[in-house]
């Protein structure tokens, strides 16, 4: 029988320790690089003079995130009972913004990450519809990340964006469950 692993890789099921170490090493490298902002900015490893493709994509995602957070804020303002259920969603988006700003640190962001809050009239008066609209926005966000992941110059940045997209996908599922509650 394969060995026990306390690692989360393979869900704690493990066939042999070497495999576990390999997964953890890979994940650790990603995490360390994501936090430090280590990245390859061009095919020859030198920093380009103009903002890289990745930095431009990062700024676009930051703008998206600001808009998304504005919709959350407006939704909570319209439906104050949603403040608590939505708190974790807002915190995770904020964590994404922080990580994105740390990523590609050599290229400062041009994104202001401030977007005017949508007028409350645009938020559905029914709680369930308002939550469903958030789910749709999360779904659109996750789908829009695909091209960034595929075209990123840095594998580290691609993995960070893919993880953020995965979180947004999970958000969409959780929000639909909340809407149906």
């Amino acid at each position: 029988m394969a060995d026990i692993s306390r690692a989360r890789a393979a869900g704690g099921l493990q066939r042999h320790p070497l495999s576990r170490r390999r997964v953890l090493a890979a994940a650790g490298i990603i995490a360390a690089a994501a936090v430090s902002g280590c990245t390859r900015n061009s095919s020859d490893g030198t920093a380009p003079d103009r903002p890289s493709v990745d930095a431009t994509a990062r700024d676009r995602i930051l703008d998206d995130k600001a808009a998304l957070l504005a919709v959350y804020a407006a939704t909570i303002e319209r439906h104050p009972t949603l403040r608590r259920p939505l708190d974790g969603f807002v915190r995770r988006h904020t964590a994404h913004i922080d990580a994105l700003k740390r990523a590609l640190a050599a290229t400062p962001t041009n994104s202001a990450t401030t977007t005017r809050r949508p007028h409350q009239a645009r938020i559905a008066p029914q709680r369930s519809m308002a939550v469903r609209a958030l789910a749709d926005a999360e779904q659109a966000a996750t789908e829009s990340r695909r091209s960034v992941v595929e075209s990123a110059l840095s594998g580290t940045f691609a993995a960070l964006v893919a993880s953020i997209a995965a979180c947004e996908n999970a958000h969409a599922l959780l929000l639909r469950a909340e809407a149906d509650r």
Partner: protein
Amino acid sequence: MTATPERELAAAQTALAAEHAAIYGYAVVGAHLSGDERARAIAVYQAHRRRRDELARLIAAEKQAPTPAAAAYRLPFAIESAQDARKLAARLEDGLAQAYAALVAAGGKDMRGLGASALAEAAAMAAGWRGSTTAFPGLAVGAGGN
């Protein structure tokens, strides 16, 4: 990090190993659930079998032997209830998310696309079983926001 065929292949093998483990694990999960949850576990089990086959095909196309499944896997904790089964299912998806995030980091465009889709599915599945998610599925970023 630079994508190379060797790194991409190694990451694909690791993802395949995680799929093998998940398939084994979901058989256990399904046995401890009933009704809609059991049906969901069976559907997810089938989805993981398809993903396993897809990865094995891609690896074989590179003239490499796909990592085989172990004969058995030791579970990380005893599964004695539906609650245990849900917890195991979420853990399985966490493991897959790690493997697919590594595949995205190591892969070329096509493999990144596969990895990103599988990572997104794993995060949603984990959220479905657990009722919550983390800010960075598949990554060990301690950025909180859970």
